[in-house]
Structures are given as structure tokens and as C-alpha cells.
């Protein structure tokens, strides 16, 4: 077992355990904090996959943006529900069965698939290359994302403001 492997398992453990805690925790604020660890773990996995830039974006956007946003949401809305949040609805059992079937099938298929695997070189910095792609080949999408964010902003604002 190489160091790489150890680090991987560490990140994997962090990710999965915290994710598990997120979905099972009764306290929504706790859940939000566990989510933080999940995002960290995923960022770590990105790094392990050689996606350094994405890992950083993950940290900035998810942890710095989305998670904060969610926490705000929790703060603003948890007055009533945080006290008595149940982890299940009456559909819990059937839902779990369906989900089990679904995930089982998915896992079976994915893990049995012979994916294309090529020997890869060790990762280099990807930031510059990504930046190039972003303003050349994927310029359209870059612009699109701009508009998307504008729309999201306008939309969110229109709903949220009094």
C-alpha cells in the first residue's frame, strides 16, 4: 500500500462517513457542518485525481459559497423544524427498498463495466490549460455561465426580497 493509497482511503473515509452523517443526522445544523467535511473530502479526492484547480474551486465555491448559503438557509428556517426533525417519512421503508434496488443495480453495473483505462502520467498543473479551454473552445459556455449566474441572481433576488 502506497502513501497515495493511504491518503486516498483517508479522504474516502472522511467523505463517506461525513456524507453518511449528513443524511442521517437529526440536527440540521450538524448536518450542514458534516457536509463541510464531505466537501473537503471530495476536494481531497479531486487532488488525488490530479485536478488541483477543481479542488480549489470546490473548496471556494462549495465551502465558501454553497455551504454558507445553506447554513443561512438553515439559520433562517430552522426555528421550528430543527427541534423535531425526523429522519424518515412514512415512506421510509419502501423508499429505502427502492433506493437499495436502484443503487445496487447501479453499483453492479458500474463496477462490472470494463472502463477504458490508460496508463497515465503523473498530474501536472491544470489551471493554465483549463483557462485556455475556457476562453477558447468553451467560450460559449463560459458566457452562458455568466448569464446563468445573472439569471440565478435575478431570480433569487426577486424571490427573496420583500
Amino acid at each position, binding site marked *: 500500500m502506497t502513501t497515495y493509497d493511504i491518503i486516498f482511503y483517508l479522504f474516502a473515509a472522511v467523505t463517506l462517513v461525513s456524507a453518511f452523517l449528513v443524511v442521517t443526522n437529526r440536527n440540521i445544523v450538524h448536518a450542514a457542518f458534516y457536509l463541510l467535511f464531505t466537501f473537503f473530502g471530495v476536494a481531497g479526492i479531486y487532488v488525488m485525481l490530479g485536478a488541483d484547480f477543481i479542488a480549489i474551486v470546490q473548496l471556494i465555491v462549495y465551502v465558501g459559497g454553497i455551504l454558507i448559503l445553506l447554513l443561512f438557509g438553515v439559520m433562517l428556517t430552522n426555528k421550528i423544524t430543527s427541534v423535531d426533525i425526523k429522519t424518515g417519512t412514512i415512506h421510509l421503508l419502501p423508499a429505502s427498498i427502492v433506493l437499495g434496488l436502484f443503487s445496487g*443495480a*447501479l453499483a453492479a*453495473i*458500474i463496477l*462490472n*463495466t*470494463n*472502463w*477504458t483505462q490508460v496508463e497515465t502520467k503523473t498530474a501536472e498543473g491544470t489551471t493554465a490549460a483549463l483557462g485556455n479551454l475556457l476562453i*477558447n*473552445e*468553451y*467560450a*460559449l*459556455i463560459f458566457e*452562458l*455561465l455568466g*448569464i*446563468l449566474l*445573472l*439569471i*440565478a441572481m*435575478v*431570480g*433569487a*433576488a*426577486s*424571490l427573496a426580497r420583500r
Partner: protein
Amino acid sequence: MNTEQLLSDIGFIKPEIAIAITLVVIVVVDLIMGKNKKALPYISIAGLVITGLLVIQQFGTSVSVFKTSPSTSLLVIDNFGLYFKIIILLASLFIIFFSMASNEIKSTYARHGEYYTLIFGMILGMFLLSSAVDFILIYLSIELLSLSSYVLAGFVKNSLRNSEASLKYVIYGGVSSGVMLFGISLIYGLTGSTNLYEINSLIQLQNFPVVTLLIAGLFVIVGFGFKISAVPFHFWTPDVYEGAPLPITAYLSVASKAAGFAVLIRFIKITFVDSIDEHGFWQLISVVDWRSIIILLSILTMTLGNFSALWQDNLKRMLAYSSIAHAGYMLLGLAVLSNEGITAIMLYFLIYLFMNLGAFFVVMLIANKIGSEDIDDYKGLGRSIPYLGVSLGIFLVSLIGLPPTAGFIAKIYLFIALVDAKMITLAVIALLNTVVSLYYYVRVLRNLYLVQTEEKRPAIKMSLLNSIILFLLVAPLIIFGIYFTPIVNFAKSSLSIFGF
């Protein structure tokens, strides 16, 4: 890819740019003008008209633009996409007019700037969706479309049903697109590409594990199915349609569905079709049996749509189910997997645009007055609203698909395609569904005319503008019902999908 290439490519997305500019103009004008928002709809209309002219100009071009590699690109400009853009534009134009007439939307006067901005956000999303040939762009356009519509569905903030619709929509949409994204990732994992054309050639060349392709495909279909509200991915539709403001419901039922169909057709045709034989039938690559899947989905969709509609007391909800049923009919056209089938869908959409928007428009005008969309509240209304009533009658008859309305032409083209493909059983099922649909459409007419009530029903005064809009919606149904050469020719000439 160099800058020159980029600049020349931009020339091909003038309509999209026009939409984006209008969007920005609206935001800016909204900011400058402050409380006075009267100009916004007219700016929108102007923007749409200009866009329309640009779209029409593009007819006949067939190029792929925004290359991501020498052989792949993000967008293609072809007649097929342009046809759907025309439909989207027409629908948008009508929706602007609807919004001007709708009491619901009027009540949000202070936020009209956001309203029209979001509408244009949707239009942009749909435009890109109609031409996208890369999963990245497809996914992002769907998201752009969705984000705008989530907000629009809940636009009347203090209405519970609006908010509820919005919440359901966003959760459902988020999960659907998430699943779709997962599916895309699997396809990417198999082929290493997100470009439909490239994927197609790779599938033809290599033996990918079929079941993985199947599950990935199904995941993708979850996303598309969500947009076109195909059963079993339709569950949000009735709730959101009922809850959302009426113009938005109408818009979702036509434009957003059109974009969804455009991308679905492209997805199936570009990704999984091997070749087209001399009779116009598509030969699928033998990996996933898309034909059977679509047949199953379409039967489920139309049957569930029609049978559930039987039960509805709320006209909006009924129309929601009816639009599900119509999606089912249109899926049949795809199931045929032939050029003729696609022509039928395109024709169907053009006609569906008028009849469905028309029905919603009348419902909206009546709701403006009587404050209800409940079918039972329509009792005895027929005589006090002669023009609205007759128009609604024509829309509903057209939705049933009876001659001499254009709805019949839409249906018969579909059946022609089915019979041509020797899918008689499907045609029979669809026809029986048509009979079922008669129940609930006619029920509205029954309440309007057959039921006699003692109480005096209010007359509805129509503004000149509304009368003109109503006329513009009714007239094509009758004219194209009797003389449908032009629309068929239009649809046929728009059949060309880039690369085939």
C-alpha cells in the same frame, strides 16, 4: 480554435445574442426606469421580433459552430433547430401578450423587470437546447431553462400554490438533472466524449458494454423526460402547472416542451442512429433498444395523461394532464424512428402551439373574471361569453383532433407515420386514447353550453388586443385545418438535422 474562428462562429448565433442583449436591456431598463415598468413588455416584443427575423434569416444554413476539437462542436445550426426556435419564439410572443392580460402577473407589477428577464433566460436556454450537440451545453442549457422556470413558477410570491409549485419544481428538477448528469458522466466514462456525433461514431466502432450504455441512457432520459413530462418522469407536471401563474403554465406546456423534444430527438437521432434507409427509417445501432423504450414511454404517457385528466376538476390541472397526453402522442412520432415521424412531431408542435396556448388563454381570461379555474364554475357560462366560448370550443375540438380543425391534421400525420411504419397496434392505442380524451374535453363544453343555470353569469368584456390575440390563435387552427399544405411544407423543409 482561434479568435477569427470565434468571431465567425458568433455570426451564427445572432439570435441567441439578440436574446441575451434583450435580457440585459431589460435588466438595465428596469434599473433606470425605476417604478415605471410599462416599457418592458414592448421591449420584450421588440427583442423577440428581431430575434425572429434573425432566425428566419438563418433558415437553410447547416453548420456546426464552436468547435471543441476539429471534429466536434458545441452547437449546430440547422433547419431542425430553427424550426423549434420559431415555435419557441411564437410561444414566447404569445406569452408576453398573455402576461400583459393576466391578473396574476399584473399583481407582481413591481417585479416585472425580473419577470421578463427570467422569461428571456428561459428563451435563451431553450434556444441553446434546440441546437446543442454536446452534453455539456445540453446540461447547462437545461439548467438555465430550469432555473428561470423554477422562479417563474413561484413568481407570485404570496400565493401558496405558486410557492409550492416552485418548491416541488426545484427539488424535482434538481434531482432529475443530477441523475442526468450522473448519466452523462457514465457516457463520458465509456467514450471519453460529450459530443453526440463523436459518441455516435465511437459507439459504432467499439463494443461498449450495453447495459452501462442503457443505464446511462436511461439517466439521461430522466432529464429529458422531466422536460417533456413523459411518464414516469412527469409527476411534477400537474402540480406545477396547477400552481404556477397561468401564462407560465402555458409557456411550460408549449415552449419548454418543444425544446425538450428538440433535444430528445437530436439525442436519439445523432447518438444512436446508424443510418437512414431510403424510406426514411432510421436504423438504430444495436446497443439500446430505444424504439421499445420510447414506445413504452409514449403509451404510458398518453394513457396516463388521458385517464388522469378524466378526474380533474381544475381546468388548469386538466390541461396539464392533457399536455402530458399530447407529449405521449408526440413521442409516438419519435418511436417510429423515421423522418416521417419527426415531421409529424414538428407539425404537431406547430399546431399544438396554437391550440394549447389558445385553451390556456381563454381559461386565463375567464379566470381573470370569475377568479376560478374550476370546471364546475363554468356552468352555463357559454351564452354570456359567446366569442370566448366558441373559441374555447374550437381549441378543445382541435385538441381532441376532430376535423376540420388543425388538430386533426396533426393527429392524422402522426397516424400516417405510424401506419407507414406498420405500427398499427400503437395507432389503435393512440386512437382509443383520443376517444378517452373526448370525455374530459367535452366536459368543459358541456358545462359551458349544455348545463343551464338560473343565475346570471357575468359577461366578459374583451379588450381589442385580447380579441386580436384570440383571433390569431383561432384562425390558424381553422385555416390549417382546411388547407394545411404550407405548414406541412414548412415542417418537411425543416427536417434537415445537421450531419444527415
